């Protein structure tokens, strides 16, 4: 049976981890290879790198970083941030990434997702959706781009359905209302998107406790859960997260 994935996410700036794991045994907390090894040893199911540099020079840097990580850690990696051309995707896949995550470029030009899925295979195209409650107070959630700064007026659920039709292989759904709050995933949003599409949905944004991870799967119907800070700051290990999920009756890889 397919296991529910736990995915730690690392923010990368100029090839260095910005919010690193504060573990004592780590020599260089900014080194992505060291961080990846920690998560690898803890049994993470995938790694997600989010490149926040998103400049032209930064693109080469992230490719080198992916190469270095792939050199030492034999586990799946998703890389996102500023991807807007097919060549970016190809270079990242060749460097050792398994999936790429596309956000703003998909909104700017939805056909880019179609082209990427056709050329590179839909299984490696993740569409990242940053959503928050509609500002006019009406029902539902609106998607935002450019790291959450730019509203689009697009409904999150409709967008997820459209992206799945365009060939996205997976949705990485972040609740901006919850991101950084440690109050747990936005479960109504997660469930609305998960139930609307038949591709896997990764829930993100707001995890503060291990129960939140369980809720994301059981109540949010997510196929995978992503978290950053609870792992970064050593509050919980991946192994503890998996145990909590297993205790709640969710199939995980232990």
């Amino acid at each position, binding site marked *: 049976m*397919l*296991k*529910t994935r736990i995915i730690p996410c690392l923010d990368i700036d100029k090839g260095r981890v910005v919010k690193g794991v504060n573990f004592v045994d780590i020599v260089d907390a900014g080194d992505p290879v060291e961080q990846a090894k920690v998560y690898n040893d803890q049994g993470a199911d995938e790694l997600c790198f989010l490149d926040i540099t998103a400049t032209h020079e930064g693109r080469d840097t992230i490719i080198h970083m992916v190469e270095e990580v*792939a050199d030492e850690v*034999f586990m*799946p990696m998703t890389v996102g941030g500023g991807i807007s051309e097919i060549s970016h995707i190809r270079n990242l896949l*060749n460097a050792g990434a*398994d999936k790429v995550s596309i956000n703003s470029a998909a909104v700017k030009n939805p056909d880019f997702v179609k082209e990427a899925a056709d050329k590179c*295979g839909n299984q490696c195209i993740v569409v990242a959706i940053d959503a928050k409650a509609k500002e006019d107070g009406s029902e539902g959630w609106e998607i935002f781009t450019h790291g959450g700064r730019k509203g689009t007026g697009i409904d999150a659920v409709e967008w997820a359905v459209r992206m799945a039709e365009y060939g996205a*292989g997976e949705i990485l759904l972040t609740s901006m209302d919850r991101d950084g709050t440690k109050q747990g995933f936005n479960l109504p949003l997660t469930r609305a998107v998960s139930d609307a599409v038949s591709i896997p949905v990764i829930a993100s944004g707001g995890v503060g406790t291990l129960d939140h991870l369980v809720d994301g799967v059981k109540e949010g119907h997510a196929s995978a859960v992503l978290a950053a800070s609870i792992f970064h700051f050593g509050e919980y290990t991946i192994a503890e997260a998996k145990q909590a999920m297993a205790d709640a009756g969710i199939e995980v890889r232990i």
Partner: protein
Amino acid sequence: MKKIAIINYGLGNLSSVYNALEFIGADPFLTEDHKELEQCDGAILPGVGAFGDGMAHLRDNGWVDAIHEFALEKQKPFLGICLGMQLLASSGTEHGDFDGLDLIKGTVVKLVTGDRSARIPHIGWNSVSGTDGKKSYVDIENGQDFYFVHSYVLEPEDDAVVSGKCSHGKEFIASVEKDNIWGAQYHPEKSQKSGLAYLQNFLKV
């Protein structure tokens, strides 16, 4: 040290396969030139992408005959990974009907689960069983988890070539093994310990 060619035909996670092989003590090298197969003890066909596209790339660069000579006439170890495994089949049905390498008799079809909770693409870690006694699974316990990312599966005509099975909404073929010709639908190079053990076994063919 075994020299293993990793076929670079424009599609694939080449460096991951390269790194994994190097890690387990092989001597891998990436090649775009089929003539270089001659100097190799074995070859791996990786691949991410669509079936028709993959075959077109292989054909355009003269790989089809070279692979046949290598795997069939010379019977050298040949492993297809993910799309690479699917290309071993006689034909594929992704975005049209296409001929495959025909090294394993069978067809590649979309994985239809008929179960909404079994989402497609099939992405993540899933257990592979039915592996007891298979050369490709020496030192790998039956039921170990491997990492999958795919929407299509190979359905072989002959059950005897099946080396591992997996289930996602329904049972499908996770790996094949026909003498010197192996295929893995999952990514051994991404499957941590179990995946490295699988590749280790490939070096022993």
